């Protein structure tokens, strides 16, 4: 299902509200719901679907509307170490944008970013709301290996590489908190519609949080968002 092709909080709100309706209408053991930006994809792996009938049901449920979304949503505060050891593209970004590293860090940590989608890799968040001043093109040639936890910039997006992978974003820091762990009760704590705000940490705190994250005692900083 598609909404107008715009990156807008109001559209995401509508999709999340609609998902709360669908949760009461369809058998979630058969369906997976994948929201992203302006779309909601319903995927059924198990049973055959009468497409035309299901389509008209979906539209009818949408038309019924929903009371304020009951889904709990959170603002997650995530630490980032902007040391040049991690922020391997910081100097280049600084030159290209004509900003001091300190200004880049201030701008990057000033915003609450909205999670418009999760995909590409387990736990990879598409974060919207980057300040215009930090808009920068992807690197000309992608790297074959970007370290786990790398925090990058590309166009008007920022995000964290949840695992080592190839990638073309400009890396300005590293987040020591694992974004996905198959052994947790909730393998990925963030959901589409949540918000993320970064805060800068020193190397020593980074090392501590990384170890806490690995052994599973890192305490996540979250606050409920009231719509």
């Amino acid at each position, binding site marked *: 299902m598609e909404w107008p092709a715009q*990156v807008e909080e109001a559209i995401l709100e509508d999709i999340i509200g609609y998902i709360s309706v669908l949760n009461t209408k369809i058998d979630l053991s058969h369906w997976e719901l994948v929201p992203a930006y302006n779309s909601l994809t319903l995927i059924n792996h198990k049973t055959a679907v009468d497409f035309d009938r299901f389509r008209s049901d979906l539209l009818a449920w949408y038309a019924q509307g929903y009371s304020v979304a009951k889904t709990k949503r959170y603002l997650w505060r995530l630490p980032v170490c902007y040391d040049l050891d991690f922020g391997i593209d910081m100097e280049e970004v600084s030159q290209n944008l004509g900003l001091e590293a300190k200004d880049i860090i201030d701008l990057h940590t000033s915003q609450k970013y909205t999670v418009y989608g999760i995909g590409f890799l387990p736990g990879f968040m598409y974060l919207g709301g980057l300040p215009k001043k930090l808009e920068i093109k992807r690197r000309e040639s992608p790297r074959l290996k970007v370290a786990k936890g790398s925090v990058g910039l590309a166009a008007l997006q920022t995000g964290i590489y949840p695992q080592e992978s190839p990638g073309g974003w400009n890396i300005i820091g590293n987040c020591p908190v694992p974004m996905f762990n198959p052994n947790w009760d909730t393998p990925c704590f963030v959901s589409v519609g949540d918000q993320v705000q970064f805060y800068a940490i020193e190397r020593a705190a980074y090392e501590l949080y990384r170890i806490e994250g690995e052994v599973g005692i890192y305490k996540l900083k979250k606050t409920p968002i009231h719509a």
Partner: protein
Amino acid sequence: MLKVLKSGFFSTIQDTGRYGLLNKGVPVSGQMDAYSASKVNQLLENQEDAALMEITMTGPTLAFDEPTFICFGGADMSVTLNNEPIEAFKIHAIQKGDILSYGRLQKGFRSYLGVKDGFRTKRVLGSRSFYFPLTEKSHITDGMEIEYETISDFTPKLTALKVGALADETLLTVSHGPEFEILTHEQLDVLFDKEYSIAKEYNRMAYQLQENLSPHQSSILTSATMPGTVQLTPSGKIIILMRDGQTTGGYPRILQLTKDAINILAQKKYGDKIIFKNS
């Protein structure tokens, strides 16, 4: 325990896949050619989700240290049990100390080895399918040991099945993807009922094709993708996502393969031909 004496090119453990976490970016994974895999499990009278070994191109050499029953099928590889050739889609009894060896690939690309009651690698998020780093391993390696049940007593209802070779099929039945309408007449004229060749870039994540369509400028906001989604890059390259493919993507999704078409494509390798056919 099954011991991997030689790992060969690329083998993994796969079941029917990992479901329920698409909205967290976790691909479905699972057997690339689910048809051949299901026939192997059927003959062994296994549960549908029993885990098999998916063997790609050059197979391993494996030693069994407990009795069981095995069956294999899919790509045509010369398989020997203690140096004697054995047949696909047939039940073979295994004794302690038996050595199973895979020889030259004759046809197709992926073969499935099943044991009675399936391989017992660790289940991660509901599935034994290898997908690194969710699972500890991305593929089997020399010296690795894989658990299975010891079974010396099994009278199969069927001892052999005649299974058609998917490697001979080239027609991929497709339906229209969400961005099908971006295709121009010029692109549509060459998309269907014409041969395309598999490019060098092909694996469990995606298959690329050698022939391009004309370039385009349409872009979409990142949206969901799934196994069998056919993407068209701005330069006109055609990418078909497979079982380990990413769960979201920003390229227009022009077509969607049927499940059968995914199974057929799973048996293709570099240079093989396929034809898209409208459903």
